[in-house]
């Protein structure tokens, strides 16, 4: 077990290193001038040159990358555009010349929004996906099954920006059934926090739950004819209980794997949902950074997203091993 965790940690580090290299190479080698943007339209050539120097952009690419990695591990001091030294503690993801704050702080400011949004959406995915999938499987071939399966097909094919705006218009502005979406910190009152995120949770959850529900249904159908389910019924267990205890267990592993991937993706930011509902999360930060050529923030958010995917996939593997004693962690 310790060996497994160690191996996975090493693997994760290797993946993340490769991701930083790729993001770094792609964005820093791009033919644009962050110094010009950071300095602003009123700068003259000399000023831009000074800014470029203070941002370290006149260094060779390999040197910049080495600085970046060093900062990640040990922290470093970075000069702002005007030359003010900024202390960026480890793990230093660089300094955003656009936002004038260390990237980690920029992410930290917005992360509670992403955490709240992703956490709630995941809960909706699990409850709705597993519930609909299992209900459809148990009633296979009936009208219920067709209705639920049709419902998931709608979910899988509809776009968040369409569903989000449509529901917002119908449920919030026209009928007042839902509170206005927005983010209130959890500390300011759980009620307000949940009320503001309710619609985003449902929309993001529903769209992602659709795929999940379809997988849950097919996994369940595949498992419900397994010998051990029949054995359980042969012991005198009711069909429903046998399906909950045995079919559910047998169907769970692929669902856990998919959930791991989805969780990783959601925690990396949900740009479209954030935009539709006006939430300032990590997704919006990342897209803004790309648009504004804020390279340190771009690399930082890419790294964060990759980190979460790697983390949740590893967690999913642990869950699978816990679910099925035949699985050996290797």
């Amino acid at each position, binding site marked *: 077990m310790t060996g497994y965790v160690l191996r996975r940690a090493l693997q994760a580090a290797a993946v993340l290193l490769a991701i930083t290299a790729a993001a770094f190479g792609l964005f820093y080698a791009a033919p644009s001038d962050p110094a010009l943007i950071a300095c602003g339209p009123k700068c003259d050539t000399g000023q831009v040159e000074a800014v470029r120097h203070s941002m370290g952009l006149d260094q060779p690419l390999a040197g910049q990358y080495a600085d970046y990695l060093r900062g990640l591990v040990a922290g470093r001091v970075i000069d702002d555009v005007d030359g003010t030294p900024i202390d960026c503690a480890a793990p230093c993801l660089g300094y955003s010349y656009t936002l004038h704050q260390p990237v980690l702080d920029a992410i930290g400011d917005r992360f509670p929004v992403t955490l709240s949004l992703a956490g709630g959406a995941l809960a909706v995915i699990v409850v709705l996906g597993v519930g609909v999938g299992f209900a459809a499987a148990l009633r296979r071939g009936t009208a219920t099954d067709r209705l639920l399966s049709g419902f998931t097909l709608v979910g899988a094919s509809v776009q968040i920006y369409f569903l989000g705006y449509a529901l917002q218009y119908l449920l919030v502005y026209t009928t007042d059934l839902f509170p206005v979406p927005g983010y209130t910190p959890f500390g300011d009152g759980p009620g307000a926090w949940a009320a503001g995120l309710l619609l985003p949770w449902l929309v993001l959850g529903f769209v992602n739950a659709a795929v999940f529900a379809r997988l849950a249904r097919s996994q369940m159908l595949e498992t419900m004819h397994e010998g051990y389910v029949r054995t359980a019924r*042969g012991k*005198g267990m009711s069909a429903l209980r046998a399906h909950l205890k045995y079919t559910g267990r047998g169907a769970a592993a692929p669902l856990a794997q998919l959930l791991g991937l989805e969780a990783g993706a959601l925690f990396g930011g949900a740009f479209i949902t954030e935009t539709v509902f006006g939430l300032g999360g990590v997704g919006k930060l990342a897209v803004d950074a790309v648009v504004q050529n804020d390279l340190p923030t771009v690399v930082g958010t890419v790294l964060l997203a990759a980190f979460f995917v790697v983390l949740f996939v590893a967690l999913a593997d642990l869950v699978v091993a816990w679910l099925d004693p035949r699985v050996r962690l290797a």
Partner: protein
Amino acid sequence: MLRVRDLTVSFTGRGRSVTAVHGLSFDLARGEVLGLVGESGSGKSTVGLAAMGLHDAARTTVGGSVTVGGAEVVGAPDSAVRALRGARIAMVFQDALAALSPFHSVLDQLAEAYRLHHRAAGRAEARERARAMLDRVGIPAARARDYPHQFSGGMRQRVMIAIALVNAPDVLIADEPTTALDARVQRQVLSLLAELREESGTAVLLITHDVGVVAATCDRMLVMRAGHLVESGPTGKLLTQAEHPYTRALIGAAPTRETVPGTRLPTVESAEASAVDPGAADPGGAPAGPAPAGRVRAGAPGTLVGTAGAVRAMAPFAATAEGGATGSGAPGLAGAVSGGAARDSAGRESAAPAAPAAPAAPAAPVKPPAGGPLAEVVDLHVSFGGRRPLLGRRSEPVHAVRGVSLRVGEGETLGLVGESGSGKSTTARVLAGLRKPTSGSVRFDGRDIARAAVDTRLRRELSREVQLVFQDPYASLNPRRTVEESVTLPLRVHTDLDAAARRDRAAGLLEQVGMSADHLDRYPHEFSGGQRQRVGIARALALRPRLIIADEPVSALDVSVQAQVLNLLMDLRDELGLSLLFVSHDLAVVRHFCDRVAVMRAGTVVESGPRDEVFDDPKAAYTRELLAAGM
């Protein structure tokens, strides 16, 4: 205890309905063991599930009546049937690995079975009961917390039996409880079942395709075919003087120690042919001429009369009456046909009239090997695994084969026998050039072929001479390819015949294996298991190889189909002068089919020699053990 009246089970789906059981009636008394025998598709397992009330009501219609100790199962509300299931009537399923939950320890699964019918019992009490029951079936307490995949096949089946019997049911339904097990383990499980039955007085319905198992364990037996009851009666009577030709064919189809090696085996088709031919249908089994061959064409081997099989006098089954002379146990069943006459009649409809053969004819003489060794392995070692992961310890390699030396002579059939895990299939794969040996030499026709598995050119050249017939005819034919495509593939790879010539050749091959050119454009799913295996054999013959390696070619087939395929292989061997390496766990089949035999255990050859020497005078203790358990 169990009373079945007019049981009819139909499956409905996609607008059509298939009736699997037609109006079956029988009784099972307290403490009795009743064998329910039939081939796959006969509806025997459906009967077991109906008795448990386990059919899916949405897709199955169950009619008639099944009562367990007076309580009706058919049409009863689910809660009432649930109270019976696991408490009054329990079931042991065929494949224990699939039937046990992989997610729970055997102790928990057993305790659950107890608690479901003892609501008042606490966890601790249920575990206590479960431990006692595990102990009773011979699972040590130290392993109670282990999971099913950590046990051997025999132990898993013991766990399954413990689960079924933990609530001391009145009726136990055992559906093929020993089918996937090696002969020795099979015997252990059956005797455990017998012991427990005597202790508890549980009545047992034993569902199986294996007449031998029924003979060893059952008081009475029912024979089912296509959902209908063919015949029923006391086991001893049915084994020796069955009324119905189907019963006789089923009983006679599997070779036993008493069968004369190399003779044709009776098949169900031949039994039917004899049934429609009034002269031959005489249950007395008077010698009869070859059956009309028209519809049997697909089953060319079936041109003999079924009664021949009955001659095998069920002595080995009856365990007690070990009649020396084969025929003596079956007075009046003199329809045996000598091996020679049988071969002559094969394929040719102008067969000579069957000559009445002397009962218990001495074994056909073993052919002397015609030449030097055609294929040979010397001091073969094969190990698997042992890869080192990125971090952590290197896993121990598994030594599947350790120091095996074998040779197959020109025109000879070598039987390679052993239990599962003995390394026999691995050895066969090395000889086929599909696996690289870890060490040792492999030669075919004097040429070193050890590198065939990693050298594509050598492998291609070798495959002109060495072909394979696989165990599972369902898995070894591509379901998306027509028979023609499957059979002509080797010709496409190895010859420059054009499409028309290939098709001609394929048609000829199909006729050679008892099928017809009409079958060329069909897909595997349109054929029965026996026909598919014929297609597999035709494919293997396409390049006119010199050596055929057949890895358990008949073990996935029903006994009557097995008889057809064995008959076919014997005909082809004689016709084409093939050499064969025949891998099997079934000693009776090997004895019937092979000239020489090598017995493998745990990666080594414990004994090898001419057939009669190995079977009549086994030197190794292990061989004797196998013979005692298996035949």
